């Protein structure tokens, strides 16, 4: 990982510098990102944007198409660097490149088709400073956790969509990253499978406590999975709702609290 020296806390935006009792692990700090569009125009999805990601929580980001959700997620992962102003702070330092400590999971094309589940999940292990036994133990444990122990020798084309995404999650988690970024990971799955995958992700979070940031289009998924739901307004992205959804009342799909927030978010996105 390439990172710059520690930054001066005084230069942080007031909302981040003030912080909460737990220091955020990952922060977009006055981040601006722009790139050339069609016919000489400039697309600027993020302008002076700040967002602090709380350690050990699941943060779900929602917003209309083109609101800059994926751009934000990629920037948080260190995949977009060289912003003209601001940047992404990871553990208090500017992030200059992707790091194995922040791992991203995509909607598709996550698994290498020439490797079986075991080798796909263990792909990143050789870059970790652990002994062979430790690697083996972590590999077995994570494959067991995501329920793929019986499919360890199967190749991606022999797996269902849900199994593929579970393998991708296992591969991301086996290296024990500090942050897991999920870019609409379940959008290609049917409703039943989506719910099962959400429950499984929550279960993994309970077991490992990994900080997660998930971009999704699904309001229900965001409320039930996330401890916090952030709604982005249209370009340049701005936060139009930042709701703490960790209360168990939000997890009852038929409860009034859940339905009220769902309606509110849907109105905001429309």
């Amino acid at each position: 990982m390439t990172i710059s020296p520690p930054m001066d806390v005084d230069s942080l935006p007031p909302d981040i510098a003030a912080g909460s009792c737990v220091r955020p692990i990952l922060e977009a700090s006055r981040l601006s990102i722009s790139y050339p569009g069609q016919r000489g125009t400039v697309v600027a999805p993020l302008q002076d944007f700040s967002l602090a990601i709380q350690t050990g929580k699941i943060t779900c980001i929602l917003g209309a198409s083109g609101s800059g959700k994926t751009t934000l997620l990629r920037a948080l992962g260190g995949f977009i660097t060289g912003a003209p102003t601001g940047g992404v702070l990871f553990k208090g330092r500017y992030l200059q490149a992707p790091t194995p400590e922040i791992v991203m999971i995509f909607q598709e094309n996550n698994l290498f088709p020439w490797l079986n589940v075991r080798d796909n999940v263990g792909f990143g292990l050789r870059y970790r400073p652990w002994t062979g036994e430790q690697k083996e133990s972590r590999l077995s444990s994570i494959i067991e956790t995501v329920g793929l122990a019986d499919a360890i020798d199967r190749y991606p084309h022999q797996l269902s969509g849900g199994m593929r995404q579970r393998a991708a999650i296992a591969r991301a988690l086996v290296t024990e990253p500090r942050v897991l970024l999920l870019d609409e990971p379940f959008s290609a799955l049917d409703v039943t499978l989506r719910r099962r995958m959400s429950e499984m992700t929550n279960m993994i979070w309970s077991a490992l406590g990994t900080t997660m940031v998930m971009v999704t289009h699904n309001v229900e998924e965001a409320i039930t999975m996330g401890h916090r739901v952030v709604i982005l307004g249209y370009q340049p992205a701005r936060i139009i709702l930042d709701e703490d959804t960790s209360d168990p009342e939000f997890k009852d799909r038929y409860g009034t609290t859940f339905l009220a927030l769902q309606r509110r978010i849907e109105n905001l996105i429309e």
Partner: protein
Amino acid sequence: MTNASKAAPIVLGTLSLLTVLGLWEWSAAAGLAVSTVLPPPSQFMAVVAESGFRIGMGSQASPISQSLVSTFLRVFTGMGIAFAAAILTGALLSLSRVATWCISPLLYLLAPIAPIAWIPTAIVVFGISNTAAIFIVFMGVYFVLTIATLSEIRRIPPEFHTVAANLGASPFERFYRVTLPAILPGVFVLLRSNFTAAWMAVLVAEMVGLRDGLGAIIMMGRNLFNNDLILFGMVIIGVSGFVVDRVLNFISNRIVWWRV
């Protein structure tokens, strides 16, 4: 697929082959004129067996297996070098857009040249030697495979590289753990389809210049007005080409079977 439907192509293919052979033998037995130009397998195989499966005059006669090995060695060495060189060139070119723009026109200009067209140049430069034959095969396959490699590299989903980099793989590790396996099946399919061109080029080279190999058997038959030898040479070439194609097909389906 049931066992019956799996066996059907093999059974039907064998039956059709046996029918052709039967008609061929029958036409010769019936004394049709075609048998003098196309002696049946029972005739030319008997003649070749009489000579102990050795081709040539007197003490210079050499076993057929030697011709077979010479031709195979030329084709596979040329194709192997071209395969490795094409992947290396394609990978290096993919690192730089400017390099690709500079080299691409040359690749597209040289790719359509049939390998047979390189025979005179190869003989002038390398003389009548194995190197000339290997060079002909190389030139016939290399440019096409390089273009295929570039195109396969462009087809790799960007997520593959992102995932590998994200998990800690260095650029070199990303090449041999992601790029290489991702492009291998596609490039191999093209290698298989170009085998026929390489095979023909070597046979022609053996006919016009080199003194041994399967192509030389046919030329010897022509010089001696020996139809049995010509037909035997043709059958050996056909059967060897078929076997190699099956082997390449097996590698394509069983060893580099995945699709990106």
